[in-house]
């Protein structure tokens, strides 16, 4: 297991997350995809930390996990309110800001 394996796995996870965010039609799935992207970033942080013998990367990944938790809390709350207001979770229908 070299650093490259970790990084490639991280890259694949990030791409999966990105496609999920861009392609899915459900706000909750989009939120989950964002989680995947954040965790992909975490993975590369930890991999670099171990490779460089520097704890800084692990510390940052802890921060990211904390932020991800709060993001999910707020994101799910927004999803609930969106569903109540609009009766749907399809982001295609949320075009009030259309110019």
């Amino acid at each position, binding site marked *: 297991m070299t650093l490259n394996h970790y990084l490639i796995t991280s890259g694949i996870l990030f791409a999966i997350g*990105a496609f999920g*965010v*861009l392609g899915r039609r459900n706000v909750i799935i989009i939120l989950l995809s964002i989680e995947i992207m954040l965790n992909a970033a975490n993975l590369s942080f930890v991999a670099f930390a171990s490779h460089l013998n520097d704890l800084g990367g692990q510390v940052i990944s802890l921060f990211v996990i904390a932020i991800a938790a709060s993001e999910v809390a707020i994101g799910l709350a927004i999803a609930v309110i969106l569903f109540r207001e609009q009766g749907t979770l399809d982001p*295609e229908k*949320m075009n009030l800001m259309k*110019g």
Partner: protein
Amino acid sequence: MTAAASAWWILFFPLAAFLLIPLIPEKKRTLGGWLACAGMFCAFALTVKIAWPIFEGQPFHSFHASIEWILIPNLQLEFGVLIDSLSVLMLLVVTGVGSAIFYYSLEYMAQDEGYRRYFAGLSLFAFSMIGIVISANLLQLFIFWELVGLSSYLLIGHWYQKNEAADAGKKAFLTNRVGDFGFLIGILLLWTFSGAEAARSLNFLNLNVTIPAFAQASASHGIWITLAMLLVFSGVLGKSAQFPLHVWLPDAMEGPTPVSALIHAATMVAAGVYLLARTFPLFSLSPAALEIVAYLGGFTAIFAATQAIVQNDIKRILAYSTLSQLGYMVMAIGLGSAAIGMYHLTTHAFFKALLFLGAGSVIHATHEQDIWNMGGLAKKMPVTSVTFFIASFALVGFWPASGFFSKDEILSLAFLENKFLFWVAAFTVFLTALYMSRLIVVAFLGTSKIRKKLHEPTQKMLLPLAALAVLSLIGGFLGIQNILSPASHSSHETPVFVVALATAFGILGVLAAWFFYRSSRKIQNRFQTAFAPIREILVRKYYMDDLYDLLLRYIQQPFAQFLSWFERKVIVEGLVNHTAAFAAFSGFCLRKLQTGRIQTYLSVFFFGVVILVYCFTIANLHP
């Protein structure tokens, strides 16, 4: 208190009165009048204190004090006082005659609705006028000069409900603007001439040194000095109502009579003459400019005097007379003697203020301004009439009244310097005698055409009349001419010929008016039909108002309309509207990008990140 501090206080008192009067409630309005008077009396008392050495016959030591005001590169401007014999003389005239007229106004304006507004305006005027007189530099003088224009506008339009008064105020203000525009350019020109860039200053004391140096630096500089001085003179044309900017002064008689006396006869219109005297060291560098000044002054003198003969309004006759006398002063300075011009300014302030106040008393009693509707006033208002006669005596220039001395100084100066202008001025004496005698014969003598019972005004109005009458009578013996030029008076003797000629012309004018206006109606009518064409020209004021009307209608107005069209069509529609339309159109195109879908935005965002990463990493690794 030092002398400089007193000079500041002179400026301060009328200003304080102006600021305090609006705070006084309408119920206690008389307090406002007294406050204005108090401010003026204090200013007068301080002026007398400063001028005390002159009264004791000692030479006056001029002084200069200033505080720094605007300090930018190329311009060190200060706010200062310059008190020399010239400004002391002018201060005495302004505050002295001013005090008399303020006091007179207490009674004259007592019933007026705008009583406090009137006295506030009068105090503002006094403040501005004193500011002009004590100013130590040209720009400071210009600021007060404009303030004087403003207060004049306010006071001419005091009865603004009357259309004539409101129009006259506007006319005065706009005509003055024309002259002041040139004046400002003249000041800027003088500033550029005043030495090296770092040390330029508009201070009079500096200008008197730097401008002659500039003139001597090169022969070609003379034409620039002439241009600058003529531009400064254009300010004088406006303020002192000289031809061709004289048209506002007769109309300004729509204001209250004490205002006419103070502003449009004794002091404000004399500000132009004062400016000429103040900048005389600069004017004397340009003989060409002085010659133009002299000829315009002489022309105005005779030009206005002829129009005074046909006026029927008592105040308008006096207004044209003022124009004519100002012409004398300007001519005297143009002929090379600021001292003689200022001498006539002083005596003229005495007797012209007195004439206007006398006319005010008449108007106050009769509510009538047309002299043909008066008649026989001498019997009914003896005190007013006697003072009016004394003032007329001085105006025409009969011995021993004050006008005799100052006018003969001017005439003998003209006799020595320029024979043509001498004859113009001498003939104007005849015209002066003619129109003043006409006024007196028609309004004060003969049978009364007024039914109601007339009465003399109260003490408050008679006291200033008496004081000014005394000054008009003995003004020639007070040694006023020695204040400015202690030596010059003895240097040339007044030629006997000049005195005799002027007096003869004066008597001739009086006799002509006496026999003509006391003759029967038939002779008068025959005479009038014989001279109808000339009379028509005079009544129409040489068509000057019509000329201005044409100029405005066919030159200024089309030009203004073109500018208005240019502004509306080209600037607003062309530039402003099209700029807005371009913004709207680009917004219309760009808003298509705003789909409102988060996922579209995110796609663009990711795509951008990919491009950035490519640019910063891969492209750099493999150049």
